[in-house]
Structures are given as structure tokens and as C-alpha cells.
């Protein structure tokens, strides 16, 4: 669904679109009415009270009226407060992150967008999201300020270097939508144009699964080595024997380890699978139970690949 621009706002394709638009059209019609009223009154005065002969002078001593002045300070304040509260409520809704959202990391840099999905998938300049599900973006920039803007979703949020900002939306229809960078970011700013592709839930899951299969022609062991880095195992587990926050993977598979509770176990396929999905179940002696679970973050096929990789490290 490409931007089919109407006279004013673009089509409504997120759950907050109608909130934003209702207020916009309210303000818009009030403004048009007020503008017409003022210009009409001024034109009428300019014609009606035009001097016809006679001397210029003070035609009326009426230059001050306290009641009137207080009234015309208070009365305009009412619509201003009304639209302010209305707008702030929508703003709060835009900023209240839903707990059950699909979480995606967005990275902006000169001059493209890249997105990282929960199960290891990633995409560049095309954000793929499921329809009718809240999506939460955690965003950061590699260089200057950028700004994530999808007009059809009525969302915009600056993307900053050295800080994270967040944004959420829930698309209500499938289709393709323009993703702009709204903050000037250098000469390629205008070409920093992405797409948001809204797909059905099953399509979204299928797409992410496809992303998680080992690339064609890659061995399971190599895929495991790649996951070792991309899933950040490398942060705590070395492959050269150096103890880190967690035990090293070198010479681990097939060997016996001493657990914190005094048991001794052999590191086999099932032990590794359990340690990835439920890391606190068996803690190697001398280490803290600090590893987060990868339940829901990692696929069976990826665990297979990691096991294959660990086997190569024990040879």
C-alpha cells in the first residue's frame, strides 16, 4: 500500500492514527474558521469604519474594558487546554511501551537503516513486522542524529548516537509504507528512505525462520561458529581455554565437569541444550549463575549448530 496522499493527512494504518487525526482535523477546522472570522471582521471594519471626510481624531473613548479583557484571556484558554489534554493523552499512549510487543532493534547510520529481530534475523532498509501486533523498536545511531518517521503510522522518534530511544506502533493492515529519516543527517539524508513491510503473523514467523537457517552451502559447524559470535556467547565463553564470566568452550564437549553442588557430569548434547535453555539448572563449580536463558531466542536448528561447533573445539 503506497502513499496515496489525500488532501491532508496520509492514510491511517496504525492503532493511534485515528487518535492523532481526530485532533488534527478538530484543530484544523477550528483554525480555518478562526482565520476566516478574523479576516472577515478586519475587512468589514476597514470598509465600514473608513474615514469619509471630516477630521481624524479619536472617534471613540472606548479604549479599555477590564471585564472584556479578562473574558478574552480566559475564553481562548479553554480550547487551548482542551486540545492540550487531548494531544498529551495520545502522546502518553505513544510512550507507554506495551509489554507483549515484538521487540526489534533498529540501527541508523549514514545513510541506511538496519534491523535486528529477536531470533537472529536481520534486514537492511526494510522493516518487516506482523500485522495487528504491537512492535517495539529500540533504536540507536552509529553517527549523527537520525529520526525514525513513518507518516502512515503517525510515529516519529529521534535516533541518537550514544543513547537508546524507543518507539512502538501496531500496524492495522498489511502493506508497504515509506520510512523516512526526518532529521537532516548529511548529503545522503533524502536517500535514507526505507520501507516498512507489514505482513501476516504466519508470514512474519516464516520469514524469521528462513533467516535462521544456515546460509546455503555453509556447514553446520561453521553456522555454529557464526552463531557463537552473533548470539554473543563469545562475550563470556572463550574458545582458547581462558576462563571468562563462564567456562571456556575449549575441550569441553565430552569431558567431565565438577558442578557447584559437588556432582560430576559429562558434557553431552543434552547437557548443552539444557545449559542454553535453562542455564541455572547446572552451574559449573567456580562460576556464578548469571547466564540469561536463550529460551525463545534460539531455534533447535541453531542449538544443533552450536553443539556441532563445540564438538570441533574438543577435538
Amino acid at each position, binding site marked *: 500500500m503506497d*502513499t496515496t*496522499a489525500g488532501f*491532508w*493527512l496520509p492514510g491511517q494504518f496504525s492503532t493511534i492514527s485515528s*487518535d*492523532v487525526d481526530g*485532533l*488534527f482535523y478538530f*484543530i*484544523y477546522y477550528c*483554525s480555518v474558521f*478562526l*482565520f476566516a472570522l*478574523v479576516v472577515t*471582521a*478586519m475587512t468589514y*471594519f*476597514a470598509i465600514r*469604519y*473608513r*474615514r469619509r471626510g471630516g477630521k481624524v481624531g*479619536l*472617534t*471613540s473613548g*472606548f*479604549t*479599555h474594558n477590564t471585564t472584556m*479583557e479578562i473574558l*478574552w*484571556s480566559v475564553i*481562548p484558554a479553554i480550547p*487551548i*487546554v482542551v486540545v*492540550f489534554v*487531548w*494531544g*498529551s493523552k495520545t*502522546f502518553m499512549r*505513544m510512550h507507554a511501551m506495551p509489554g507483549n510487543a515484538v521487540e526489534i532493534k533498529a540501527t541508523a547510520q549514514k545513510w541506511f537503516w538496519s534491523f535486528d529481530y529477536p531470533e537472529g534475523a536481520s534486514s537492511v532498509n526494510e522493516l518487516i513486522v506482523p500485522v495487528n501486533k504491537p512492535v517495539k523498536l529500540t533504536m540507536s545511531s552509529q*553517527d*549523527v542524529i537520525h*529520526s525514525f*518517521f513513518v*507518516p502512515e503510522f*503517525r*510515529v*516519529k522518534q*529521534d535516533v*541518537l*548516537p*550514544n*543513547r537508546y530511544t524507543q518507539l512502538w506502533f501496531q500496524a492495522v493492515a498489511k502493506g508497504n509504507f515509506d520510512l*523516512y529519516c*526526518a532529521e*537532516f543527517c*548529511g*548529503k545522503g*539524508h*533524502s*536517500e535514507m528512505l526505507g520501507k516498512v513491510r507489514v505482513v501476516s503473523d504466519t508470514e512474519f514467523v516464516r520469514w524469521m525462520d528462513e533467516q535462521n537457517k544456515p546460509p546455503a552451502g555453509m556447514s553446520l559447524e561453521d553456522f555454529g561458529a557464526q552463531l557463537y559470535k552473533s548470539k554473543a556467547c563469545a562475550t563470556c565463553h572463550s574458545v582458547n581455554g581462558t576462563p571468562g564470566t563462564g567456562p571456556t568452550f575449549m575441550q569441553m564437549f565430552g569431558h567431565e565437569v565438577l558442578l557447584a553442588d559437588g556432582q560430576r557430569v559429562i558434557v553431552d548434547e543434552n547437557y548443552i541444550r539444557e545449559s542454553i535453555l535453562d542455564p541455572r539448572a547446572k552451574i559449573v563449580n567456580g562460576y556464578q549463575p548469571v547466564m540469561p536463558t536463550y529460551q525463545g531466542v534460539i531455534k533447535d536448528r541453531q542449538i544443533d549448530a552450536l553443539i556441532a561447533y563445540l564438538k570441533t573445539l574438543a577435538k
Partner: protein
Amino acid sequence: MIQSIVKRLTSTDHVSVGWLYAATIALFALAGTALGLTLVIVTVKPTLLFLNPAMYARFFTLHGNIMINLLILPVFAGVFGNLILPRVIGSSRVALPRTNLIGWWLYLAGGLLMLVGLWVGVYDGGWTLHTPLKGMSSPAFITLMSGLLLLAGSLFLASLNVALTIYRRRKAGTGWAGLSLVGWTLFLAALVHLIIMPERFLFLLTQLVGHFGADGWIKQATSPDSQVFQHLFWVSSSPAVTIVILPAIGLISELLATFTGKKLFARQGVLIACCVFAGLSLVVWGEHLLIGEQATRTSVLFSFLSALQGIPAGFVLLAWLATMFRGSITPHAPFWYAFAAVALWVMGGLAGVTMSIMSMNVQLHSTAFVVGHTHITIAGSVLLAIFGGLYYWWPLITGSMVNERAAKVALSVSAVGILLTFIPYFVLGVKGVPRRLSVYPSQFQPEHYWAAAGGVVLVCGVLFLVWNLVTSRKTLAAEPVNPWSSDAPEWTGQTG
């Protein structure tokens, strides 16, 4: 010849300094206008008619910086403060003649340095100087920041002179109550300047010092943290709007009162409204950071204060209408300038209130709508108020009468140009087109055509306005005493 030029450039006579400001501001503004016209013309094609994207960015960066720093900020203190203010308050001189002259020199030096910095550096982030200023060469950064520093100093000195002139050099017996609204608004604008300039000065200085490496809070303030930079920038840049709006209120009020043959309605209320507007403008800078990384409750507060600015603005509008009501209107040319300025004031102001509403701000921030709002307000309402004021006082300061028929034609052309150029930006913004795009989706081409056509009309109108002023000298030799039958003291000979 050279001697007379040197004498001109070093004279501490305020009239001389006023004309120096007028001439230099006009030259810079001419360059800014040429850049602006180029910007609307090149965008008639979705991929730029000519210029490359880098040059396009440099053009809009220069355009914004020139128009804001070298035209609308100094024009009131520099031109009106020197040529008109002393006569309005009945003084033969300004309070600080030497400071006043130094102010102009700083203006010239700062302006040239800033432009050199922007031209030699590949920096192209618009007038808002968005950090991190990556890609800017060191000499260019130093030149740009030094230029802006000198300009801040210039504005400080010019404002100090205006404030003190009004404070100390009013004609004996003229109390604050007798001070015209033009004097009052120039005074308030100067005060706002004096309040914000130290912050701006320190901000720019820390950027400059931080560039050479420093520790502690300077390092913090100059770190690549974009949010700290933006706050420091907007603290002084956001109230700058007031410095422009307040004197425009003064000018419009003066013109309406004079040509309706009445006193300004609710003068005291208008003054209070001006003070409230000025006060609020000092504390609404966070409104520019609603889509940045700012706590929601902070955003709510800033946004609320920002929306409140609509109340004093509305009060002033109603006072103008009440002034016209049952007046005895002599529709001379300056009256129509004020008339058009009020209409555009309403349009720009309503767009401003819209932007201050939080959910609207999210959609409209950084879009072409902002371009429409700022230009309708400043390149529309304020511009026409300035020209209205110049037309009004031109006979007083030059001794020659303006051609009114030409002035009215020029106004009509300019007004059509303003609407034609900037309304399309409102439309584009609402449709979701970000500002500063050198390449845009082709379905938005019609709006860009209108804007380009409007730009040509507007530039013709403004050139005609200026030409009419400048040539008025020749058309009428007889010195008009009080061509507008004004009862203001500077016209009736009660002062000066």
C-alpha cells in the same frame, strides 16, 4: 573619498550606525533571499533541477543562518533602535554611542566569519547546528563558532544600548506610561536578549574550548551527546523568536492605532500580554525536543507552557480588532501592511499552537509544516510589519514621501507571494514530507511547483518594496511634515 568612508564607518552618531546596519543587513538579506529562491526553484524536480544534494544542503544551511542571525535578530536593535527609537522617545542621542558602533563592527565581523566557516566547512546541518558536528574541518568549525560568538556579542551590545536608551534617555516627563508600544516592545525584546545572551555566549565558548580538548563540565557539555547540545542550543535559540515577535507586535499596534485614529485598545493588557509571552518564551525550549530523548513528564510541562503562549498572542490579536472597531480608518499604505501582517499572524500563530500540542508535534516535527509555520510567521507577518514600519517612518527619517500607490501594489504582490510559497509547505508537512529533502517522492511535485512560482512572485514583491523605498528620495522633493496626520509625538514635533 577613502577618508569619508572611514569617517562613515567610525562615526558614533546613532543615525550613521543605523544606516550602516540597514545597508549591511540589506546586503546579507539579499544573499539570503537569492539562496532561498534557489532552494524553492531547484526542488520543482523531485531529484533537484540543478545543484547536487551536498550543495543543496549548504544552500539551506546558509539561507537559514543568514536570515536568522544576520537579518531578523539584529534588524530591530540595529535599524529600528538607531533610526527610529531615539525620535520616538524624543532623544537626540542614544545612551551608549560607542558601544553601539562596536556592536555594528562585531556584527559585520561575526557575519563574515560565520559565512566563511559555513562555506569552507563541509558542515551542512542547517541553522540548528545539529551535533555531532561530524565532517566539519577544524578551521571551519573554529571560524563558524567564532563568528557566532561575535554575533552574540554584537546582539548583546546592541540590546544593552537599546534598553539603556529607553531607560535613561526618554524625554523629560515621559514616564513608562507615556512610552509608546514600539518603545516598550523594543525594550522587552532587548531585555530578553540580555537574559539569554550570556547562556549563548557560554555555550558557544564551551564548544570552542571543548574543540581543543578540555576536562570536567566542558568535556561533558561538548561531548558527542546530542541531547545536551540540543538543550544548550535551544535554551537561547527558542526565546529568539520572542525577540522578533515582540517588536513586530509594537509596530503593528502603532500602525493600527495611527491609521484608525484611535488609541490602542487595552494598551496595558497588551503590555502585560507581551511580558507574559516573553516570560513564557524563556522556559519552553524543551518543546523542540519532544521527539528527542526527554522524559515524558518534562515534555508535558514544556508543551503546556508552549501552548499557553497562544493566550497572550490571542489577547493581542483581539486588542487589534477592538482598535479597528469603530475607528476612523484612513487606509494609507502602512495600514494595509499592518492589516496583512495581522492576517498572517493569525495563520502562523494557529500553526504554532498546533505544533505545541504533543501528538501533533510528533507528526509534524521536522516536516515541511515547520517550514510553513516559521516562514508564514517571520517571512510573512514580521516581514510585512517591518516594511510597514519602514514605510510609516520613512518620511520622518529621510524627509521624503513614499509612493503610496506603488507601496500598495508591492504589498499585494508580496502577500500573494507569501501565501503561494509557504502554504504548500503546510500541505506537504501534513502529508508527511520531512523538511530539507533534496530528493522526494514524485507525487509531491505539484506543491513544489506552487512554492517555486510563489517564491518568484515574493522576491519580485519584496524587491519592488525596497526599490520603492530607496527611490522615494527622488520622487518628492518637498519635505512632508506629518503625512499620516499622526498624533504620535515624533510627528507632531513634541519631541526630537
